[in-house]
């Protein structure tokens, strides 16, 4: 019985079954079948399985005193790592190294226990291997000021397409006392892929 061509399923995505990969009269053997069916199927399966499974996830929090600085990159927050699925945290640099080219949701929050004003949060990334910070910071995002009341805080949520040469880190512009781990976090969650 001749082998059927594989154009019977037109809804399948490019490129696995697009074009005519079987030629009339072409002898078929198990190697060709393996290359043209098993291989693409395996690729598709890997994409399906990894889609939202095993996404990169980094979560960290902080309590106690946080040394701040008005100079960007001068006093990065030494987060306490709770989860780091792809081992991106660089403890000596207080920065998180992006392990995969992908789209990430980044959420960062710092709240402090006393009354303080004029402080804000920086979230930044760069290519400087020494913590990813300094004059070459690529995307320093700065929050509004802390509210001048007890328990004031500042937060940033953003989605960024990041490449593996980025390091992500955060700092506040003046020294504060973190309200609790519940109130201070840096979360980086992969939410998509870059192609």
């Amino acid at each position, binding site marked *: 019985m001749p082998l059927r061509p594989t154009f019977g399923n037109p809804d399948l995505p490019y490129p696995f079954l697009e074009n005519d990969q079987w030629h009339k009269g072409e002898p*078929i053997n*198990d190697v060709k079948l393996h290359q043209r069916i098993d291989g693409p*199927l395996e690729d598709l*399966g890997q994409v399906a399985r990894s889609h939202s499974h095993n996404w990169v996830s980094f979560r960290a*929090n902080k309590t106690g005193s946080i040394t701040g600085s008005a100079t960007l990159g001068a006093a990065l927050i030494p987060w306490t790592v709770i989860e780091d699925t792809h081992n991106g945290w660089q403890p000596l640099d207080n920065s998180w190294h992006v392990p995969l080219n992908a789209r990430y949701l980044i959420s960062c*929050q710092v709240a402090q226990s006393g009354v303080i004003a004029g402080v804000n949060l920086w979230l930044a990334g760069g290519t400087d291997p020494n913590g990813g910070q300094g004059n070459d910071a690529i995307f320093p995002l700065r929050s509004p000021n802390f509210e001048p009341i007890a*328990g004031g805080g500042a937060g940033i949520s953003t989605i960024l397409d990041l490449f593996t040469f980025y390091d992500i880190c955060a700092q506040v512009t003046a020294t504060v006392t973190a309200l609790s781990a519940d109130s201070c976090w840096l979360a980086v969650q992969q939410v998509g892929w870059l192609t």
Partner: protein
Amino acid sequence: MAYPATPLADQFSHPTNPRSVLEDAPDMHTKVDLQLNALRAYMFGQPTANLAQFRASHRAAGATAIAANATIKFDTTLTNTGGGSWSVATGLYTVPAAGGLFLATAVCTLATTVAFRLYISGVPNTFGSANINGCAISVIARSSRVRLVPIRFAGGETVGVRPTAAISIEGITTAGTEKNRFELIQIGV
């Protein structure tokens, strides 16, 4: 939910003759068509279908007093899909049994100025704690919020929103003015 079994490394070899190919119609259908169909169904189901969405708002006509650390009972369900359940009586959302990756947002606007923070209680320990605190109130804006925060749920958690101090939620009665709301949007499995 997981995609079914990995295709065999070489599933077309004849079981006894390595130079031959096993290719009868039912066999090819099983090994190719069914796998492709399953894969298509799986991938077309991602990432938007069958994911949970939950949004609730508080629309009381007048200001509503909430005690410190009391769960806010948002009374209007705007969206609730994907199997999770919301209880107005308790103010708790039960995460679907399958769990997954969610984005959490909570906002409250007050009738009077109070220094407080919103927090989402009952979240799993992906942040090392059972609660996530949002920003403190702004004196002018009289609001507090937990911004988009990714949280991974194991499934079945009961989650609610609480203020750290006694507050009075601003009255809202109509759709489109949802100043007090709680949202959990699933973005992955």
